[in-house]
């Protein structure tokens, strides 16, 4: 998350709402380890990554839904085995568990 700090500071200074998504667990093969993080602001700007680019698009959609909706943190899962993930295409065959939360702390 260290690599996100400069951009997050800039977004915070500009008063942007921010959602933070972190990899909490990987089952099987996954491109990034637990702790990998990305952040999305209310304008849809994105920094960091949580996979090799396979699920980032879907994470942005989830993050914006949280920022524009009930602001509640959420566990999400992408994997080869479920339909949604098949649509976003996690090619390595693993399952990736993410925690997405508004960065209000």
């Amino acid at each position, binding site marked *: *998350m*260290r690599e996100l*700090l400069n951009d*997050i*500071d800039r977004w*915070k200074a500009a008063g942007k709402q921010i959602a933070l998504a*972190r990899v*909490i*667990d990987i089952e099987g093969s996954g491109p990034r*380890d*637990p*702790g990998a993080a990305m952040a999305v602001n209310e304008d849809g700007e994105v920094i960091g990554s949580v996979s090799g680019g396979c699920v980032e698009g879907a994470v942005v959609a989830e993050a914006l839904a949280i920022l524009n909706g009930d602001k*509640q*943190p959420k*566990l999400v899962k992408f994997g080869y085995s479920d339909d949604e993930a098949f649509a976003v295409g996690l090619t390595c065959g693993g399952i990736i568990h993410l*925690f997405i*939360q508004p*960065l209000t*702390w």
Partner: protein
Amino acid sequence: MSLYQLFSERTRANKPVALATVIDGPNIGAMLLVTPDNAAQGTLGNAELDRVVARDTQGELEAGRTSVRHYGPQGQTTPEDLVNTPTVRVFIDAFSPPPTMVIFGAVDFTSALARVAKVLGYHVLVCDAREVFATKRRFPMADEVLVTWPAPLFVERGAQLTQRDAVCILTHDPKFDVPAVVGALATNVGYIGVMGSRKTHAKRIERLVEAGVTEEQLRRLMSPIGLDIGARTPEETAISICGEIIARRTGRGAPSLRDGDGPIHK
């Protein structure tokens, strides 16, 4: 100060810090910020849960590990206490300072190795006793360039070196190599690589044994340094050294030059 501010301040200062976040159960999203030296900040919603999670998080910080742990709402951890209670899942995200790579010898291989080590996130320290060679201008990518002999450097920094750190000795000069190897062996550093041909290393071993180094200690040395991938240029050699450091850490069976007996360059 907010948890984020505390977190970013410590991270930027390269000080260990961890965030424990409730990801499932009551108080989802609640956070606790844990450091090795201060009281935890924030709360997960229950004082006893905070205490137990802070304790576990300090252990994860020491190991530099990120994990998910399960507790009862009041911090219960034993299986019988967890029956019929909601489970609180806590994500422990631990940030340890970057590992250090000490490179002895201000030579061409040094700048290539320093560059690759920076890519991998190391704090890079270049050390040579020769003032004209050990300059920040020649090694702009290094975090520190020190003009000194190995012994004083190890007196000052040796105790801080851990399993995550590396010492790479690239000088081919016995009056520098021998004290550098002896100094590195006295630390807990996880990787010690020494450059030189098999012939050079055989001669070096004689000098090291004269200096009191034991057989067992000699087994810690990776020399000739690097993986047997046919590296030729300084850049390729740097990749082979860093590849060896990764393979030694993960215990994977990548072939080290040390463990073979053929020529280094074919």
